[in-house]
């Protein structure tokens, strides 16, 4: 009875819905993803709602509470100007997250477009693209970023650009190599026998099959970008103090290592947690998308 009531398109939609659901369900059911959520969830939650927490502002000094070790009042302790390290760390996480997200997005978008064009059309475009990426890949990533920051100046935007510049060529290469191996698949040939357009082939057959590995790479790139940004700031070449970037916090504590170990070490633990969380995330996505890796 119910079977007859439902018209065909509606049934297809509901099928699609359940499939999407089951995809999300599989993601959430993966133990790596659960771990990632368990690590990143609280950090993100605290960062987003930090203004509602009973914490002093990240730049607020308190001369009554200078260089205090971790206590119930200041969970991560305070620095030499009495600023609350936890509050500063959370503000730093916000910067890190922004940098990580921006770099990953930039690398993903540029890599996807350029890599697809380069791999799909080959020929002169491809050779020029490869020569250019070769040049950028000739620099160790942090050193390329250092060089660029020294030119572009410090601050958020230059840092994001400097870090992406070593990720973008990597993403172009990754996308290109995937496109090259997909280009000769039988289903592409099948579409070509009915004279499907190049745009059709790229958008319907190639890109949907490369998105997943690119997302995996992007979450690793995000983790890496967070580490590089912290490194740059630590060297005094990234985000400038008093902005509480995580690298700056660690740099601040470097001179007081003996007197106040918490200033440098605790923000470092948070960076590590974020990086581990992002790696679990990428591992999880890969496991869910590629059943072969689930050995």
């Amino acid at each position, binding site marked *: 009875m119910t079977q007859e009531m439902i018209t*065909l398109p509606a*049934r*297809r939609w509901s*099928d*699609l819905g359940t*499939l999407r659901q089951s995809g999300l369900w599989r993601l959430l059911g993966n133990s790596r993803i659960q771990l990632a959520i368990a690590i990143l969830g609280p950090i993100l939650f605290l960062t987003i709602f930090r203004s509602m927490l009973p914490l002093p502002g990240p730049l607020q000094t308190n001369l009554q509470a200078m260089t205090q070790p971790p206590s119930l009042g200041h969970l991560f302790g305070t620095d030499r100007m009495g600023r609350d390290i936890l509050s500063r760390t959370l503000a730093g996480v916000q910067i890190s997250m922004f940098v990580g997200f921006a770099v990953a997005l930039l690398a993903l978008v540029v890599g996807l477009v350029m890599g697809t064009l380069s791999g799909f059309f080959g020929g002169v475009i491809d050779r020029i693209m490869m020569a250019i990426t070769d040049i950028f890949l000739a620099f160790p990533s942090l050193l390329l970023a250092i060089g660029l920051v020294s030119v572009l100046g410090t601050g958020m935007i230059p840092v994001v650009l400097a870090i992406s510049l070593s990720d973008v060529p990597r993403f172009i290469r990754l996308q290109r190599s995937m496109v090259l191996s997909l280009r000769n*698949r*039988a*289903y592409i*040939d*099948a*579409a*070509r*026998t*009915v*004279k*499907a*357009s190049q745009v*059709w082939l790229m958008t*319907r*057959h190639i890109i*949907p*099959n490369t998105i997943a590995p690119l997302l995996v790479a992007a979450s690793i790139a995000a983790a890496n970008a967070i580490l590089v940004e912290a490194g740059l700031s630590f060297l005094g070449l990234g985000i400038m103090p008093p902005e509480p970037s995580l690298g700056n916090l660690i740099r601040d504590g470097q001179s007081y290592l003996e007197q106040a170990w918490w200033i440098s070490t605790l923000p470092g633990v948070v960076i590590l947690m974020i990086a581990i969380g992002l790696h679990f995330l990428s591992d999880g996505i890969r496991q869910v998308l590629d059943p072969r890796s*689930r050995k």
Partner: protein
Amino acid sequence: MNFLRPIQALNASPTGQTSLLEVRDLHTHFLTDGGTVKAVNGVSFEIERGERIAIVGESGSGKSAMAMSLLRLLAYPGKVVAGQINLNGRDLNRMSERQLNHIRGREVGTIFQDPMSSLDPVMKIADQMIPPIMRHLDMNSEKARAEAIGWLDRVGIPDAGRRIDAYPFEMSGGMRQRVMIAMALSGRPKLMIADEPTTALDVTIQAQIVELLKELTSETGAGMIFITHDLGLVARFAHKVGVMYAGKLVEFGPVKDIFARPCHPYTQSLLDTIPPVDQAERRKLAQIPGFPPDMKLPLVGCAFKDRCAAAHERCFVEAPDLTLRGPGHRAACWKPEGLGEARRKDAELVPPMTHSEEDRVVVEVFNLHKHFTGRSVLPWKVPPTVRAVNGISLNIREGETLGIVGESGCGKSTVARLLLGLDPATSGDIYVDGMAQMVFQDPASSFNPKMMLADIIQEPLVVTGWGNRMERAARTRELLAQVGLDESYMSRYPNQLSGGQRQRIAIARALALKPSVVVADEPTSALDVSVRAQIINLMVDLKRQLRVSFVFISHDLLTVSYISDKIAVMYLGEVVEYGAADEVFRNPAHPYTQALIAAVPVPDPVAEEARMKKPLSGELPSPLDLPSGCAFASRCPRATDHCRAEKPLLQAYSKSREAACHYAN
């Protein structure tokens, strides 16, 4: 009925001597995360000295797991959980790894399926062959080297003394398999285990390897277990045959008896799925419905019951044991004759299609060439050129099926791509009246894994702007019905399908735009025998119903001749024989066609004995430097200086046939 005794009575050997190998109630499990797969589920058999036993089964039947269990060569998570493996009375299953390492390579030699990956790529042949000989036969390195060269020479490696220092990548697949055989024999084993040793090879090379194995084992007196999925191959050389299904032996007995009087419904069906050699009238191939059981789930009753036409109540409750059906012939079925009457019911006659000269020509190919030019290492050198297709002319009429056969590398797939317009031809003309569509060999890569089946089938319609949404959906349902699938498949994804179902979807997609010709490149090669018959039957039905023309490309001559009206035999980019299928198959004119047909394994031991035994020698020469004369001269038994000097052209041999040989008439 008095044959239906349990097998225990057979155990006591009359002479009191133990068998070479006696396997008793072997169980092998794979402990995966998703559950325990009971791959081998109680297998028992024995081999006498010098006896060749073939174990036949489809993929997933547990035949390879069984073979690998004998020497405990299974990788994690596979594990032999119970059973006895008595080799000359000693139980291998109770030995330590250390003790077993003195058996492996010494008393039992092993040959594996894929010769391309079975030899260490970064080690010379010598370094892989000599140390085991030194160890097992206690020889010094010089003597061992001489011994190794002797074996390589014996298995037919030309210039063995020099080739022993080559790396595997410098040899062809057939040569590597010969090296594997030499290696396996070098410890002078009493038993050889060959796990699908010819599956990855071309049909002519397959015949050479099978002959070689047969010859060498009878020469050295070694017993052999030969694992294969190809029943036809078995008839050629086995003494006894075991048929495996769902981890169990369902039938076991002398080869002639099994072929003449199969007792288990599964064996009977398998034999009926093979296209007959004598094709005076074409009957529909038998097909086995359904799928093998999931080996993770517990089985109640007979494993084959769901696919068996003769299944009755008892089959669903109790699993049958092997019972005696004749001298040394056992089968595990409650019915004494298996399918019995039900067996013949399927074989419905396929009425021959009528073709006439008035039918329109849908494909015409004239003097087609396709050359691939490589990159030269140095700019001033002439780049190497491969002449993949070297001047062929063909035509196909409406509703006609053209079969193209040849060994791998003969250019048959290139012809397919040219016909479809996927690659541009170097020169020559292709004329297609209407549209050409394709069915691919590898069902796995034929579909975009991210697309629903409805979208896959509709893709040609959408791309060409055919109809509106509703019309396309209706057409999709119609197509699914034509290939024997129901509507529920529309919202599934390719990874939810079996190999046979995928190939049906591929055919549906190819038919979507009502093409005039469908090019099928090895459409059944990746499929199991039982499924293969389904797809062939489907294609035969479709060509009758829709009068669509097919180009059927395959290395499997038996299948090609069954389905085709005309056959083109290709060798090194050229058509060497071209004509009516029955005529070419029954009375081949070109020596190459003759050799190909001689190499086809025939599922009839009596007929096999009467056939030409000498397989075609040598391998396909490099297409880089083709000889000026006949390309086949280097392998042809009848070649003369005239052949080597002057290229024979394709000439009329009879009214409906052409052949390219100076001595065809």
